[in-house]
């Protein structure tokens, strides 16, 4: 699994990963905004990102995130 998280939501991504018991889930950082950026920009972003997603899934590259702490319940 790889989670795609746009820049303003990075901290939220950490919290969600932590609170769902998956602090180490790989996360890749996206620019913001993606929605509404236009077809060409989205295709370019996908072309740039897809090899990284595959490499992270294969364990050949690290994701962008550091592990975060366990939740406090």
């Amino acid at each position, binding site marked *: 699994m790889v989670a795609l998280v746009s820049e303003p939501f990075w901290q939220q991504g950490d*919290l969600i990963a932590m*609170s769902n018991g998956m602090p180490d889930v790989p996360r890749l950082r996206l620019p913001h905004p993606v929605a509404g950026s236009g077809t060409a920009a989205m295709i370019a972003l996908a072309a740039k990102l897809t090899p990284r997603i595959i490499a992270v899934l294969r364990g050949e590259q690290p994701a962008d995130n550091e592990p975060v702490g366990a939740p406090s*319940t």
Partner: protein
Amino acid sequence: MSTLTAVDEADALEQLHRLGCTDGLPVVIPTPERVARCVLATGADPTTSLGVMGPLSALTTIERVATNAVMAGCDPDHMPIVVATLRALLRPEYDLSEAQSTTHSTAPLIVVSGPLASACGIAGGFGALGPGHRANATIGRAVRLCLINIGGARPGASDMALLGQPGKFTMCITENSAESPWEPCSVAAGFDPFESVVTVIGVEGPHSVVFVDDADDPDSALRLLRVLARAIANPGSNNAFMRTGSVAVAINPDHAAVLARAGLGRADVQRELHRLATNLRGDLRELNPAFAGSGDAGDELHALPSPDHVLVLVAGGGGLYSTVFPSWSAGAHLNPILHERIEADQACEVPASG
């Protein structure tokens, strides 16, 4: 639960602000004695959990709820209402983790019905949603502080509402039963009139709807319904584009009288508002093509899935203005209206504080 130490209450308040445990306003310091009184008012063990609250996935224990209720300024008598509201919000149908995390401004509108509403002094008349009513202000605030401190909803970090809205501080009312031509909304939902019930729906901020009655006009009630329906289907709302979710409509007693004069009951009003709250697909497509879907430009699209998705309330003072609360319309369960019985029979009488 961790305990803070402070040299005095002013120091404690500064610590709570610094730790992000407040809503930005001063709070009552939750000393062990004050918290114990609110726990006692529930009749429950302090470790009893109402459920896991997201997005932080933390246990919603009675002691934690009581701590936040004290901070909000609640009287112990308010505790059963705060607890019932949280039970409603923690039901899977509310999709609380998603509602706390969304970029939309959704916040829980809390409507209290039945004997406890008047016993606790919850206002339903003039300015009920505004300042000046302790029970309204503090019950809603207690819920919000729980969402912040238990659920972990902090702006820009986990609560991603782009702008937020004032209803995220507090949004609690009762109906103006004394001036309503209809049964309470809880009775319409199947509860006994003598039961106290909390009704919860996630909503945007209130939208004012002006309407002037004309008793000589036989179509006056229809005009009122049409203007309310326009506000429901306003093409800036999620309801208009997603065509899901629910809305709350707080009809002021004068406007309710117009509808009652035309022979309409609460269910009739729900049916008519659903029928009239529409947009043409072509109009939506011009504004937000991504949400308009495929189909004919002349398709008439309902903003709501059914009449049951309209929460009709009679609230406020009598006059020209009623209020529509559009909604987020998202989450796995699509923003439903939820009712929860208030369990007051286990509550204990709390002795006066020393």
